[in-house]
């Protein structure tokens, strides 16, 4: 696989919620190669402000159509600029970057929180025809725009919200042991807030189930050159989240 630098065409950039958009771009060379868990690094402004690219997980691809989708939350200057991308605009995209999820097991569980659910969408598709189980947590029903997106690509969706406005009241972690056991899960993939992923990794480890985690860190280069994103591995050496990851075996990076 070769990393590419492309001028991609915006196909659509739709609002999913007041603060979340889904951006679909035409980027055939990247779409042809991209694997679940990998990300693209997008230049959001034509000029120098803001200066750095923004990393986003690849949430979907249509290799035949040459399209690629990212789902992003508008949180600051860069994502606000992205929300004004219009169909037909040309944007500068690097990708596919990083190491994705390793597809394995027979009964995989995907545990996601917040925008960490985005890469799990493409992962669920890639894991087909295995029966894919999904467990997702969020604060309220409002943040839970995900279920319809997963409808056709998974066996069952388990939802927890902090206020109980959708699914079970509580966190994804509260529901985890039950979901693991009932569905005879044999591999766990997780992406979301660090505390959630640590809890997932711990529960999986206790049940002897292999677990892959997708980490996040502020990134300048996205290709392993600047060392802005590194983390300590359990063996005392360092890992670059952008190029050794973002997906790691849980035991590789969590102690």
């Amino acid at each position, binding site marked *: 696989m070769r990393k590419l630098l492309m001028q991609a065409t915006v196909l659509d950039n739709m609002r999913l919620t007041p603060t979340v958009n889904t951006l679909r771009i035409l980027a055939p060379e990247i779409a042809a190669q991209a694997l679940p868990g990998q990300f693209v690094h997008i230049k959001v402004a034509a000029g120098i402000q803001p*200066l*750095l690219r923004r990393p986003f997980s690849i949430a979907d691809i249509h290799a035949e159509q040459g399209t690629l989708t990212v789902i992003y939350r508008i949180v600051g200057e860069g994502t606000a600029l992205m929300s004004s991308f219009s169909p037909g605009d040309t944007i500068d995209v690097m990708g596919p970057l990083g190491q994705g999820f390793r597809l394995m097991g027979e009964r995989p569980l995907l545990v996601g929180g917040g925008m960490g659910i985005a890469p799990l969408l493409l992962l669920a598709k890639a894991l087909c025809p295995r029966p894919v189980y999904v467990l997702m947590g969020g604060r309220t029903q409002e943040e839970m725009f995900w279920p319809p997106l997963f409808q056709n690509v998974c066996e069952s969706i388990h939802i927890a919200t902090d206020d109980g406005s959708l699914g079970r009241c509580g966190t994804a972690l509260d529901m985890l042991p039950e979901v693991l056991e009932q569905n005879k899960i044999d591999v766990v993939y997780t992406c979301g807030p660090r505390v959630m992923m640590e809890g997932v990794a711990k529960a999986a480890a206790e049940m002897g189930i292999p677990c892959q985690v997708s980490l996040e860190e502020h*990134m*300048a*280069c996205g290709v392993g*050159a600047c*060392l802005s994103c590194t983390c300590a591995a359990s063996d005392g050496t*360092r890992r670059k989240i952008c190029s050794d990851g973002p997906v790691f075996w849980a035991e590789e990076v969590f102690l």
Partner: protein
Amino acid sequence: MSKGENSQLCTEFAGIRMKNPIMTASGTFGFGLEYKDFIDLNELGAVVVKGTTLKPRPGNTGCRIAETPAGMLNSIGLENPGVDHFKDVILPQLAPYDVPIIVNLAGNTADEYGELARRLDIPGVAAIEVNISCPNVKQGGIAFGTDCASATGVVEMVKRNTGKPVIVKLSPNVTDIVMMARAVEDAGADAISLINTLLGMAIDIRSWRPVLGNTVGGLSGPAVKPVAVRMVWQVAKAVKVPVIGMGGIQSAADAIEFLLAGASAVAVGTGNFVDPRISVRIAEGISDYLTERGLTHVSELIGRVNDYC
């Protein structure tokens, strides 16, 4: 002419033959290999690798970068795999490329700098860049770069331990950059790199914490360009050794500004993150500029600013 060569741009810098005067700045281009999908390393003037220390270093904890107006702060803290790993694992991977490799060194003591230089006095290393300007480490680094006597000591020690050209990278965080430049020139520096990052800080007004885990970090990118151009101009007039200009270069126009100010070569740092092909684009842009103006060689730009003073 071989790949990447262009008679307008070929340059001899401090005894090193380069296809063009555009290098990649230390710490922003890894060991070069990280960018090989995007750029043919053979098209670069030189690759300056990440700051290398005697022992492997984990770098600083917490968040290491912050974006600032037209710039960024970094506090990597010299994470690197150590000089032995560089020699044994990295350097052999760079051997197939026809591009000068310049190794950026950082030590805690003058002796460590000397020892690093000695271990790197080997084939495959084109030159040594002595980093006495890292703002992100507690010991060494900038402490050497803000005091003439310490800087002199480090440079003399490095010179004693290597036959390679020795480039000294200065810190802009000083009252008198010309004094520092003269001191390292007198100590035997073969060239001077300007500038390393300006010490800066950003605070998250939601959490009331510094954005960087290390509290302070080094400012780079377009924001610092005017300071860098000024220092290159001041130093190039004051010393006889050649200067590598850097700080905020994002385009051929920026690079030309540094050349006119007196830099004999330039390095691109933060710009690599924005556009991984930037160095090649800049080389092409300079070439076009020379052609438009009917100039035959990039050296015709160096130091040619007609200042009013």
